[in-house]
Structure formats: structure tokens, C-alpha cells
């Protein structure tokens, strides 16, 4: 292992009402892939922002090659050798690869205001190839996959000769194949003696690619351990501060009445001829690869997108759902996969967010019944253990797990019978995941119907009573929890085009 090139010493950072980083220290060596893991709200994002100069630490210092540095902002940090690939990519889709790579740092021709495109093109090809990506520099980025776009982001940091590259949940929106490519790219970077901080929620990835893993909890450093000495159980125990018997507290109940039946549902180009039935008291899992049409299917069932053919029956009756309001009237709830884009009003209070779907019911005469609304919201905060200073706090200031609980609270308030949970634990920490699973348990215990769309196979296997697999817009298999074939092999086979 190489020299220590980067060191954080006793970094402390305060935010309104919380200590985001509490006396945090750790070291990074050249050529090391350093996993950084912790629950949401553990302080990972703040740490990244301190490392990239977005936030200035209130106490402590950052050492680079042994001497203290301060970063004025992301650009300054990049110039000093710290690059970052954010979860949300900063690619301008209308521009080509060269423009995206050199954006803000164009190479000019000598003694001329004109740009030197031939040199930039040459460099683009060179850097992209060094990262294992063979791509035409003139290609418009909107035509490239997310994986290649991410490689362009990595290339930006290489262009600035970064010694340390931070990758914030780099695999969260990648397909399996793209993840493999990213891993190969990371190995190439390692060979160039570049250090990498790899932030992830996926334990398998940490074990696959990292040399060392640092666990954070409540803004504090918990442990730094070579991965070869680490076990999954210990990692989880470090993260949540207690040992967990089981990541999936699954409880099974008797199957109840038929709640949702779908016959011949088709939306051209999205999904075709879908038939299934969902019952009370069970969790019906929908598995498949990203892009298999699962989200599209349930958006259509919920009335968000039009249906071309087929019928949706709710409790045996043709439901004729034309928009989300109809769906809610049929007591269907839809927890979107896009929490920030579609689930929450980030700049609005918890109170207004959790009462949004029931706003027409909480009225007294012409006016809103604020007592009733507060009572509901207080009950949500208490039952779902939402960590917040009060109901007036804006939803956008909460951690991912707490934000998700706010959205769940909104739907629990509608007293729905059918709960469609689309990627309910995406981007939330292990502790909050378990709480979401417990909510699913209490819903099925109360005889409600839960449909869970998930791309995480362990979650599908851990929580579903029955699993339906989709591939390219069609259902390719179904398997019951009691079946011998209820395992990842069968489901993966169906997802990749085989039969169960």
C-alpha cells in the first residue's frame, strides 16, 4: 500500500440543530480504494462536502501530503487534486463528449481566442481509453448510457490530475453490466496510484472493490478496517450500533381477499398483456432488471400514465382509473421511486407534506381543520419515528430515510387498501430500511395488500410472499415463497429471459 496522501484530523462541522461531523479523522493512501459507509444521516455527504470545499469545517484540518490545505470550493479542490463524481451526474446531454469533458477548462489555440478542438479530441480519446471506455469523442452525450456518462465524470477528475477521487454512490443508477465496467475502471485508476473514496449502500460492492472500509455513525468515526478482516455482520453492526439478527424481519400472514386484478394491460412500448392478481395480507414482489417496465406498469395502474388496452379491477370491479385522484378514491397508494422529484415538496413543512393527499378531507366548513391536520402529522411522526425538531421543519432538510417516512406517512393517512411501494428503500440506510420493512409487516398484518417493486434481489427474497418477474415489458415468471424455486437463481433466470 502506498503513502498516506490525504488525512482528515478531528474535523467537526455544525449545522442548525445537529453536529454533522463530530471529531472525524481518517487517512487515505495512494492507490487505495477506501470504502465509506454509514446510515443516511451518518455524515457521509457532509464529509464529502468538506473534502470538496463546499463546506468549511468548523474545527479540525485537512492534510495533503503532510501539509495543511484549505479548499475554497469544488473547483479549487479539483485544482488541488481532489475530484468528485456525484450521485447525480453533471453532464449536459445536448453537448458531445469533448465539450462535456473540457467544460469550463477549454484548451485554446496559441495566441488565438479560438479553441483547439483537435487537441481536445485527442486528449478525450486518450483519457477515455485509459479508463477502459472506447467512445467517439464527437458523440452527443444524450445518446450514451449512464455508465459512459459517469466515465466522462471520472475523466474530468483525471484531466485535472486528481490524486483522490470521491465517488458518491456511483452504482445507484447503473445496470449490472455498467457496474462491472465501473469496477474495471476503478481497478485501472488504482494502477495509476490514484486513491478513491467509494461511498456505497451496497455491502457486496464494498467487499468486491475496496481495500479498506471506514464506517461512520452519527457524524463520528466508528472503525477503519481492511476489507479482508471485515465481515458483513460486523459492518452492519458498526453502522447501526447494534447487531442485527436479520436484515429482513419478514412476517407472513394468511392471504386475504382479492384487492387488485389486472387483465391484459398494455401500454404500447412500455408493457404488454399484463395479468396478475394481488391479495390482502401478502407482499407481492415485482422483480426484474432496471427498465423491465415495472415502474411504468404501476404508474399506469395508478392513473399517472395512459393505458392502451386492458382492465384494472379493484375488489372485483372495473376501476376505470383515469388519474391519481381516481386511484386514491379506490384506496390505492403509490410510493414513488423518485422521492425528491415526485414524492415530496422539499421546501414545504412535514405537516403540509403528510397531509397533502388527504387535504380535501381535513376541512371544517370552508377552512382547513388545522387541529385535525396536526393530530395526523403528530401521529405520523410518532408511529413512524420520524426524526425532526417539529412539524414546521421543511421536508428537504431531513435525511433520506426520514424523508421516505414522510412520504409513507402521507399514504398511510389516506387509509388505503393497496400499497404500491416502488423501490421503497432506495438510498436509505440499513436502520431505516428495517423500519420500512416493519411498516410493510404491519400493513399485511392489518390485511392490506402490499405490492413491492424492487431491483434489490435480497429485498425481494427477504420480504415477498410471492414474486412476479418482468422482462422487457412482459411477465416472465411467478414464484411463491413456499416454492422450492424461491431463490435468486430462478428469479435472475426469468429476469434474463429464461423460465422459472
Amino acid at each position, binding site marked *: 500500500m502506498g503513502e498516506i496522501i490525504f488525512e482528515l484530523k478531528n474535523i467537526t462541522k455544525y*449545522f*442548525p440543530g445537529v453536529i454533522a461531523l463530530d471529531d472525524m479523522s481518517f487517512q487515505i493512501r495512494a492507490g487505495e480504494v477506501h470504502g465509506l459507509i454509514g446510515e443516511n444521516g451518518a455524515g457521509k455527504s457532509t464529509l464529502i462536502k468538506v473534502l470538496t470545499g463546499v463546506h468549511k469545517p468548523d474545527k479540525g484540518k485537512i492534510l495533503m501530503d503532510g501539509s495543511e490545505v484549505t479548499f475554497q470550493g469544488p473547483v479549487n479542490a479539483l485544482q488541488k487534486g481532489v475530484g468528485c463524481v456525484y450521485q447525480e451526474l453533471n453532464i449536459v446531454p445536448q453537448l458531445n463528449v469533448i465539450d462535456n469533458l473540457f467544460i469550463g477548462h477549454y484548451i485554446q489555440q496559441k495566441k488565438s481566442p479560438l479553441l483547439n478542438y483537435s487537441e481536445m479530441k485527442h486528449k478525450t480519446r486518450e483519457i477515455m481509453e485509459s479508463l477502459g471506455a472506447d467512445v467517439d469523442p464527437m458523440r452527443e452525450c444524450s445518446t450514451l448510457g449512464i455508465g459512459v456518462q459517469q466515465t466522462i465524470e471520472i475523466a474530468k477528475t483525471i484531466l485535472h490530475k486528481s490524486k483522490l477521487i470521491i465517488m458518491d454512490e456511483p452504482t445507484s443508477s447503473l445496470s449490472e453490466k455498467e457496474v462491472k465496467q465501473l469496477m474495471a475502471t476503478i481497478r485501472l485508476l488504482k494502477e495509476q496510484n490514484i486513491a478513491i473514496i467509494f461511498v456505497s449502500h451496497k455491502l457486496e460492492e464494498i467487499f468486491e472493490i475496496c481495500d479498506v472500509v471506514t464506517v461512520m455513525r452519527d457524524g463520528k468515526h466508528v472503525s477503519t478496517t481492511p476489507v479482508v478482516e471485515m465481515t458483513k455482520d460486523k459492518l452492519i453492526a458498526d453502522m447501526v450500533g447494534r447487531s442485527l439478527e436479520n436484515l429482513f424481519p419478514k412476517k407472513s400472514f394468511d392471504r386475504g381477499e382479492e384487492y387488485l386484478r389486472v387483465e391484459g394491460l398494455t401500454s404500447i412500448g412500455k408493457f404488454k398483456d399484463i395479468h396478475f392478481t394481488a391479495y390482502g395480507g401478502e407482499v407481492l414482489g415485482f422483480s426484474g432488471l432496471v427498465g423491465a417496465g415495472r415502474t411504468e406498469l404501476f404508474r399506469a395502474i395508478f392513473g399517472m400514465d395512459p393505458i392502451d388496452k386492458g382492465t384494472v379491477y379493484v375488489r372485483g370491479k372495473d376501476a376505470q382509473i383515469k388519474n*391519481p385522484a381516481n386511484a386514491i378514491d379506490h384506496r390505492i397508494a403509490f410510493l414513488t421511486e423518485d422521492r425528491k422529484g415526485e414524492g415530496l415538496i422539499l*421546501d414545504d413543512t412535514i405537516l403540509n407534506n403528510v397531509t397533502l393527499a388527504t*387535504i380535501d378531507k381535513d376541512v371544517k366548513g370552508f*377552512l*382547513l381543520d388545522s387541529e385535525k391536520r396536526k393530530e395526523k402529522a403528530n401521529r405520523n411522526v410518532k408511529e413512524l419515528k420520524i426524526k425532526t*425538531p417539529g412539524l414546521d421543519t421543511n421536508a428537504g432538510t431531513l435525511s433520506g430515510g426520514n424523508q421516505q417516512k414522510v412520504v409513507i406517512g*402521507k399514504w398511510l393517512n389516506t387509509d388505503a387498501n393497496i400499497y404500491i411501494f416502488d423501490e421503497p428503500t432506495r438510498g436509505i440506510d440499513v436502520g431505516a430500511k428495517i423500519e420500512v420493512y416493519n411498516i410493510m409487516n404491519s400493513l399485511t398484518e392489518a390485511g392490506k395488500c402490499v405490492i413491492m417493486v424492487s431491483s434489490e434481489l435480497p429485498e425481494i427474497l427477504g420480504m415477498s410472499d410471492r414474486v412476479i418477474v418482468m422482462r422487457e415489458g412482459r411477465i416472465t415468471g411467478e414464484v411463491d415463497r413456499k416454492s422450492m424455486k424461491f431463490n435468486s437463481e430462478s428469479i435472475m433466470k426469468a429476469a434474463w429471459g429464461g423460465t422459472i
Partner: protein
Amino acid sequence: MSTEVIKRENKLKKLAGKLGPLLALVVLMILLALSTGGRFLAVNNISNVLRQAPIVALMASGMLMVILTGGIDLSAGSLLAVSISFMGVMLKTFGITNPVLLIGGCLLTGTLFGLVNGLMLTQLHLPHPFISTLGMKNIARGLALLITGAAAIAGFPAPVLFIGVFDIKLGKFSIPFSFILVIVLFFLIFIFLTRTALGRKIYSFGGNREAARLAGINVNGIQLFVYTAAGFMFALAGLVYAGRLNSAVPLASLEGDLDAIAACIIGGASFNGGKGSIWGTLIGAMMITVIRNGCNLLGLSSDLQQIIIGAIIVVAVTIDVVRSSLQARAKRLAVAQ
């Protein structure tokens, strides 16, 4: 620090944030009082200000509802003009003298044009209200000129002019009826926006349209409502306008849209939607009126007035930006202690 104390401090800070624009207005008035040698505060000048404010204020209240949804209505001034022009045509061409019919005709015209603004978004799916209302701005203004033959129409019966001209006398001081109307209406709008389901839905729509739609809110209905209600408010402002000039002028309120937008923005409304208050808007409208009035008293030309109002818009928003970043910093430091 206990949470109780933090909560109380947060409330105080919120209050301070709300009172900021009011304080700016008061400072501005003191400055004007000093620089005009007290003429600004003369009884009849104050009455004048109160008489000039309602047109901007009423238009701004309609504009606010639109801006709260993240939209904009560039047709405000044109809708005002077409509403009173139509009322003029009812009088002149059709000989209608019944004041109820005339007032009703004026308000209905504004409301219907507003509805069309909304329909262009919900039915024609135009990409942004900037486009639909820019089109409407030209169409409505052209119609106003066309139906009136580009001439002002006078001779309305007194009850039609009442809203614009009637003053309530209190000794030497006279309070224009139109200003009282503004206060009453603004109070009703305040209750509507903050205490009714539809009002909250308008804020929700502006905060995150997709989240609102997913929560079962009829987002098209919200859009139709705000543009229609705005059209009604513009027509109402038109009645005040017609009353004050004793005639329907097709070229009325050429820059009314921009004044209304400015009032909302000075009052703290966000162009992104979801943020803004009716009282802030009232202060914004007063600010614009007071500056115009003060400039007139000081004998400044209209060119200069325009420059000053432009500068105030930029300064007001800059102060708001600086204030919120300072507040965030103060909170961080308070925690660090």
C-alpha cells in the same frame, strides 16, 4: 439551548423575515418625508398614495396566485384594458346603462380571458405560461383597440365609477373606498391562501407539481383556477382605473403586468413557485406606489422613476438572498457555541 428557546427564536426570526419588507417601506417613507420637507406626509398626499395603490395592488394579488404556481401572467395590463373596453362598448354601442350589467360585463370579460389563459396551458399544453400569456397580451390589447376604435369611452353611470372615485371622509382626511376594498379583499385572499384546501394546493402545486399530482390533486384545475381568478382581479383593477379616469381607455395599464410582477417579487414571492405572501405583495405594491409618488413630489422625470423602480427590484431580491444566507450562517454559529 432548549428546543423551546430554539422554537421561540425561530418564530422571532420568521417574524423578522416577514417584517423586513414592511421596515423597508417605512424607511423609504421616512426618507421621502425628509427629502420633500414633509410634503410627502401631508394629509392630501397620503390620500393620493392610497388612491394610487389599489390598481397595482389588485393586479398584484391576481399575479401572486399565478406566481405561486410557478407561472407568470404577462397579459395582466391587456386584460385590464380589454375588460374596461368591453364595458365601454356595452355602453356606447349597445346603449346599456344598467350599472350591474356594465360591472358584471367588465368582470366577466376579464374572468373569461383569464380562463382562456389557463386553457392554453391545460388543453393546448403550451410549454410555459410565458408563451401563452405573451400571446394573450397582444391579442387582448389588439381587441381592446379594435372594439373601441382606439378611442377612450366616457359617460359611465356614477355607480360604475363608484369603486374608483368614492372617498370616505374623516375630517380633513379622506380614505378612498378602493383602498378599503383592497384591505378587505387581501384579508380574504390571505385566509383563502393559508387556511383553505384550495389555497394550500396552490402552494403545493408551486412547490412540486408532480408530487401534488401524485397525491391526487387536480393540477389542471389549479392552473385553470389561478389564471381565471387573476383575470377577475385584473378586471376589478380595471374598474378602479375606469373610475379614476372617468372613462374606459384601451391603452390603459401598458406596463401593469410588470408593475404587478415587481410588487410580488419585492414582497418576497419566488419565481420558482411555492413561496410568497399576500401581505408581502401589498407592501410591494405600496412600495412601487410610494416611489412613483415621491418621485413626482421631488419633480423627478418618469425616466428616473423607471430606473429607481428597476434598482429597487434588484436590491429587494438581493437583500432577501443575503438575509437568508446570513440566517443560515447564524444558525450554524449558534449551534457551534
